[in-house]
């Protein structure tokens, strides 16, 4: 019960921030220019049609009533229409949501692998400090941490294409599919039958997931390493060792769990970075996720889509922070919520 109250209270605190934030962004979007500018210069578009669209977008009103119109619609699931050319006045809600689904799918797979692998490598590097494992892990983390995510994606795409050629040369494409590793957006991730579906799923997601994973992995492993080193120097760890408990048990039962606590904060700090990374990775692999929606919306000056996009990401940031805090509470009984 306390937990529910805590969650509700946390969400309630973020509502004013979301409110002010969305208003500021709304003003920014409005300042970005006339969304119908392109339409106005086109021949054959009647003035009535433009006026009607202008009314529909609320452009004839001031910024404040327009914002509250938008907010009212937003809260009831009517996020307005997209005016980008070729979108045929498509409603924004399904457009942004289906793109978000694509992006979240990428992020989830990548983050799960990154956390597990990063924590494992970080612990290993800390326990075997200054060993070859530590040096390799540190070097790799530094390189990936310093690499722009699109470069990782581009290099992976390049090797992916080479690998596909190799697979075809070996004649494995008959069962792995041709191309096995999709370097552009896969039409569908399912296949005929169980085996085919798995192959398709892996082939379709592998390269973009790896791109996002590597960058996150670097952060998690560095963070886990330093946190683990710090925990291993604590008095209670020495006490446990002095009592004759085996080193493996000391590491797992006494140090590891406590060393995980700071890492959960990284999850929330990292979340925006990962979303940004996913957007850029999608561009390299030509996926139709949040990345392409954003680029199109900015270039076409499409206010409703931009607002929907930004608020969806902002809300997911709030939720990610909440999840991190809840996990924090589970790991550290001293600050258990409620």
């Amino acid at each position, binding site marked *: 019960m306390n937990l529910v109250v805590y969650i509700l209270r946390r969400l309630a605190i973020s509502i004013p921030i979301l409110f002010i934030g969305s208003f500021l962004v709304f003003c920014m979007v409005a300042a970005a*220019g006339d969304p119908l500018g392109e339409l106005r210069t086109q021949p054959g578009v009647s003035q009535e049609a433009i006026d009607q669209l202008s009314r529909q977008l609320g452009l004839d009103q001031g910024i404040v009533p327009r914002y509250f119109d938008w907010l009212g619609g937003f809260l009831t699931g009517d996020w307005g229409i997209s005016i980008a050319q070729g979108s045929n006045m498509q409603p924004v809600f399904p457009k942004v949501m289906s793109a978000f689904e694509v992006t979240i799918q990428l992020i989830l797979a990548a983050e799960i692998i990154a956390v597990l692998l990063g924590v494992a490598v970080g612990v290993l590097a800390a326990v075997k400090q200054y060993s070859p494992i530590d040096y390799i892990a540190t070097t790799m983390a*530094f390189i990936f941490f*310093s690499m*722009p995510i699109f470069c990782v994606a*581009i290099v992976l795409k390049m090797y992916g294409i080479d690998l596909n050629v190799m697979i075809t040369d070996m004649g494995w494409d008959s069962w792995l599919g041709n191309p096995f590793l999709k370097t552009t957006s896969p039409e569908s991730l399912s296949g005929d039958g169980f085996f085919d579906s798995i192959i398709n799923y892996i082939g379709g997601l592998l390269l973009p997931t790896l791109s996002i994973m590597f960058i996150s992995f670097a952060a998690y492993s*560095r963070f886990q390493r330093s946190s683990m080193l710090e925990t291993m120097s604590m008095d209670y760890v020495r006490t446990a060792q002095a009592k004759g408990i085996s080193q493996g048990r000391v590491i797992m039962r006494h140090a590891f769990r406590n060393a995980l606590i*700071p890492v959960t904060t990284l999850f929330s700090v990292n979340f925006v970075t990962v979303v940004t990374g996913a957007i850029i990775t999608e*561009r390299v692999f030509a996926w139709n996720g949040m990345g392409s929606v*954003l680029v199109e919306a900015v270039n076409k000056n499409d206010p409703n889509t931009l607002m929907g996009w930004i608020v969806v990401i902002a809300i997911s940031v709030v939720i990610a922070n909440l999840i991190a805090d809840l996990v924090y509470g589970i790991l550290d009984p001293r600050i258990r919520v409620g």
Partner: protein
Amino acid sequence: MADLNSIEAGSESGRDKNPDGSGAEALPEARSQGTMVLRKFLRHKLAMGSVVVLALIILASIIVPLFYPHSFADASFSSYVDPSGEHPLGTTQVGKDMMAQVLRGTQFSLLIAITVAFLTTVIGVVLGALAGYLGGFTDSAISRLTDLFLIVPSIAAAAIMVRVFDGSWYVVALVLAMFAWMPIARITRAEAMSLSQREFIEAARASGAGTGRVVFKHLVPNMVGTITVNATLAVAQAVLAEAALSFIGLGVQIPDTSLGLVISENYEQMQGRPWLFFGAFTVLVLISLTINFIGDGLRDAFDPRQRKVKA
């Protein structure tokens, strides 16, 4: 991700004569903190190597264009010429010399990154120090402002702002700085909070110093280590952030350019003509990597404890 680096235990150099880190070192002569930090930093091989590499990149990006025969704007060459003595990195589709593009892109990327780092540090330190020192209403207001900027997706906000103004380098720099000061503000706030409990701050206040004087004459100089380290790392973050924004085409626009834009325009040729991609790519990664190493070296140098952790 900026706070990430700052929390990492930096103990890689571990060459301190004073392994337990108790300040009671028997020194033959008195050394100022600055001298000690400098000495430690100079002994950090990786960081010093990085300084040399970074200095070479910066010098090359300034000096080479003075002697280099082709201009970045000259698009009169044939399309896709292979690398040769005439065009060390070949030419692009529209017939521009790639080497000139990389040099020009490096100049702009560095210029933007340094501007962003400077602005984020100033904004972050001022807001963080005031929030941490004053507490109360100021603290809540600044903290809520930080939260606000943290939930707005910076890539979208920056893209819209570039659209509002234009894609020249200083607009991109200003906009990136606007959405990147929060981690530094948080770190500074935490440190200012703990420092303002100390006696020397109380003494300064007791002798009649006003808020401005206490914060900028007593508080900030005592955080110089944290500030320097984070400012350095902010440069690396800014290089990557700018590259990402320009890569998706929403950052710097021609006639200004940047490494991200150069990569974005040419990476699709990576299969057949890798030189069009790897030139800019290598410089970009080297800049970011060396700055991260320098930041790491600075952190070690400023850390009076020089933690040596037994495993």
